[in-house]
């Protein structure tokens, strides 16, 4: 009998696949409708020849390192950088897991090393590192918007839903990990998931223990599916669109 396909520690069931496909299809449908609207603009988009050097420079400084935000405010840079890097890191981790799970045989070297061997430890550290980074950014964002009520921020539903969904995804990710790590079978490798392990020990110390790992994974996955499906209609859309404008503007002004 074929070994079960895994998403690292979670069984990649048909339901999970189906929901993933639905979320991704909805996301693509949203992208299609948005791009269709963009394409109704018929005027010339660029007045000068695209400068690849300017595009590359702006991509590094203003998209990856977001120097333009750092010049305005360190706190805002930290917030934005953490959310951006955290989101991208987790997206890459999840995509890698999905690719390995789907395209390589469960007993292949790749699947074995990433889901059972040393690769799994890399994914453990990777997930926690970027998860903590994302949550730190979200903490700053939520504080600025809802606690300190920074004057320049004007909140509409779009702002709230994206922040809330990302926070739910981040927190439930760690919750599920914390409950998983309560299982003695992970004792030897638990500290690779350093943040999850800390949470796990903290929860056990206050008497929260042994809840269903599977339940929390499904909550985590459900929130992620909603987030993915709504990307083109939510604030998260700017993660993909803003970099395009940044590099195009840099090229035009070069």
């Amino acid at each position: 009998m074929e070994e079960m396909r895994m998403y690292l520690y979670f069984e990649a069931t048909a339901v999970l696949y189906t929901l993933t496909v639905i979320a991704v299809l909805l996301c693509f449908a949203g992208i299609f409708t948005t791009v269709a609207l963009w394409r109704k603009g018929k005027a010339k988009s660029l007045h000068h020849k695209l400068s690849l050097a300017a595009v590359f420079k702006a991509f590094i400084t203003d998209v990856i390192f977001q120097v333009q935000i750092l010049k305005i405010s360190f706190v805002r840079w930290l917030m934005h950088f953490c959310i951006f890097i955290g989101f991208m890191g987790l997206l890459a981790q999840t995509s890698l897991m999905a690719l390995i799970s789907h395209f390589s045989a469960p007993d292949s070297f790749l699947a074995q090393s990433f889901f059972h061997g040393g690769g799994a430890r890399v994914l453990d550290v990777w997930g926690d590192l970027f998860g903590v980074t994302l949550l730190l950014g979200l903490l700053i964002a939520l504080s600025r918007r809802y606690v300190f009520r920074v004057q320049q921020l004007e909140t509409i539903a779009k702002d709230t839903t994206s922040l809330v969904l990302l926070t739910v995804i981040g927190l439930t990710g760690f919750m599920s990990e914390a409950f998983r790590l309560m299982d003695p079978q992970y004792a030897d490798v638990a500290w690779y998931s350093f943040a999850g392990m800390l949470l796990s020990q903290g929860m056990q110390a206050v008497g929260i223990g042994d809840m269903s790992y599977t339940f929390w994974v499904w909550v985590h996955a459900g929130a992620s599916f909603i987030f993915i499906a709504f990307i083109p209609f939510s604030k998260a859309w700017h993660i993909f669109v803003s970099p395009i404008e940044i590099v195009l503007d840099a090229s035009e002004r070069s």
Partner: protein
Amino acid sequence: MENENKEMMNESDIQEQPDTVVNDTAPVTSVESDSTVSAPSAESENTAAVAPVEPDTSAQAPAPKLPIEKLSARQMLELDACTRCGECSNWCPAYDQDKRESLTPRGRATQFRDIIGRQHGVFNAGSPLGKLLGRKQVTNQEITDFAKDLYACSTCLQCHYVCPVAIDTVELWERIRECIVDTGFGPLPNQKDLVLKTQNYDNPWGQPRSSRARWTKVAKKKKRINTVPKDISKNKAEVLYFVGCTAAYDTNVEEVGINTVNIFDAAGADFGFLGNKEKCCGSVLLRMGDASTFKRLCRENTEQFNDLGIKTLVTSCAGCLKTIKEDYPKHAKLNFEVKHTLEYVVDLIKAGRLKLTQPLNMKITYHDPCHLGRHAGIFDAPRELISLIPGVELVEMERNRENARCCGAGGGLKSGYPDMQNQIAQKRVADALQTGATELVSACPFCYQGLQVGIQAMDAPIKMRDITELVCMAIGKAPATEEDLQEKD
């Protein structure tokens, strides 16, 4: 049809008429657009005439669809690229005066995205899915309100410079204004006069074309200039001095033209001007959304300039410079370089053709015109020129260069919202007063006018000067005396 009519009107040789006649002409735009009448079919010609269906112009009636094809795909993307961080609201001069979210660049982008989504999106208000989602039709009132806020903007470009995503805001607003004008919701009633005058007289002041060069004759008569500049269309010259409408027609700032001519004369520059054949650069039309007339002026001017065989076009007006240097090349090729007078003067000084010898003993502060600084990227040249003038101490305002506060005069704001412009100008004058300078210097006749409004409103102890005036004084040409100024009045 409306556009065709406009084109026809512009193309025709309009009779020179006094200012007041222009005000009686038909409005530039009207809500009764071409959607009211469809071309009659062969069948309908043989039947009883059917009265055209008048569009419902009531406030709550569905608005006509905005022609978003006038925007580029990139500009449509820009509406989605806004992260809603609100940095623009910290800097916007209009929002600084009226704290309504709809005045911020973020607010405008959000509102326009919503409007076009409901009109043109896959889930538009008329589609089955749109109805299912409860999306409401865009009403005339919504567009009217949006237009009012859209025109409360001086197109200063500050929002672009502080935007972490670098959205090209001003070009976006200009294109959106074009959509608004085409559907009859803009420009605002008190801006239409300015547009009409430019359409009819090729200058926003509604003055006859034949009096465009009058200032040179008056200045010559008063011995304020040695000679009237030569007509470059008849006598070739290396440099075309493009005077611009404000310096040519507004007697309060004609000093800019007089000073520029005196400087060029002193340096022995090979220059000429177009006299009465000069036309508005079209800046005011482009900023306010009348693209068809702008394109007409751009085409006519470009052809005229290119035929002159000049090496350089020099202008003392920041608005003209931005339009000719930055906007014209988007429509036509120029066979000459474009410089602001101060850049050209720096060249003349470096070449040893102009000597600034007279110490002025002044403490000045310099206001970067938006169209010269943020729009054209000229920040160093004016400071270099000031540093070359003996006896001048430059004290920078806290907000300078890329972050210089706008005077509020541009983009149609002064004509649309004069009170707001006055308040914005006062803020800038207050910035200047804080430096302890006695002179507020700029390099744009429009800023000169705009800031003068603030100085007068505050009765501020600071004198407004154009940078050409300082240069003129430094080469030993006396500035305009009180007598000169009184004579003009």
